């Protein structure tokens, strides 16, 4: 047998193999298309937030309507306390402005020491 005979046998075998083409099994096609659909839906889901208004993003970041209403209530309460403090609490502004500093020195017992140095 010559080399060309062997090659033609092999080529014939390849031709037979090509004719016995392999079909895609149905269940495999379903698996592939299920993957494709999952990827497609995931991509659509990711694309939605990207197109959103940045102010809406901030709104969501603060917790939506619930978070925002809580934030407004807390802010208003703070403002109200600032303007009309309850009577049993000292006014911090008065405390700072009107207090006599000599009381502080006397309290520390430093007044006598200072006077002694002058004498």
């Amino acid at each position, binding site marked *: *047998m010559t080399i060309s*005979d*062997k*090659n033609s*046998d*092999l*080529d014939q*075998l*390849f031709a*037979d*193999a*090509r004719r*016995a*083409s*392999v*079909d*895609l*099994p149905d269940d*495999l*096609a379903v*698996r*592939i*298309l299920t*993957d*494709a*659909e999952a*990827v*497609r839906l995931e*991509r*659509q889901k990711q694309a939605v937030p990207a197109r959103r208004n940045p102010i809406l993003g901030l709104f969501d970041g603060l917790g939506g309507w619930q978070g925002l209403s809580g934030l407004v209530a807390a802010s208003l309460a703070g403002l109200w306390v600032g303007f009309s403090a309850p009577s049993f609490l000292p006014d911090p502004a008065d405390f700072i402005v009107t207090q006599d500093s000599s009381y502080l020195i006397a309290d520390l017992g430093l007044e006598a020491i200072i006077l002694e140095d002058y004498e």
Partner: protein
Amino acid sequence: MEDLTSSSQTFRGESIAAETLGDEKLLRLFADGDAAAARILTDRLGPRCYSVALRMLNNRAEAEDVTQEAMMRLWKVAPDWVPGQAKISTWLYRVTLNLCVDLRRRKSADALDSIPEPEDEAASAIERIQHSTRLDALQTALSQLPERQRQAVVLRHIEELSNPEIAEIMRISVEAVESLVARGKRALTAILAGRKEELGYDDIR
């Protein structure tokens, strides 16, 4: 094919049938959210992936897993695909072959620690498909070729790709492809000649 024909109506008013669109155009449509494009691409490219994987692995279940993974990579790469960079089929063949190589390496590593699977299970996969002792002998002989020779022979003589395309898939020169195919065919001829008497194949002369 019925759903494919109807799917062509969803292709944004284009008058041409969806099936006639190129792979790149279909992939772009899929990336833009067109589910029908995925069906056509699966029908067109899935069998090629599966055929090569089956020839390389000689195991139906493994070939199915590799095909599913290769197609999954195609779906994922769709939005980033640069038109004209390569043929999608070329890219997909390369991905499929690489996945086959990875799988075989993993199996070889696992085989060191475990009991090997019976040979018959792998061989029976192709038997069920081809029902031919001649083709069975060819597949068995292909399985005995070194990896790169088998890749080159399968792409050249089963998939009927051109040498330049095989060179691009395998990332080697055209001359290297020719050499691999020639050596692969010589080895196949020797293996089949050896099996002729052993298996009593009178029709392989």
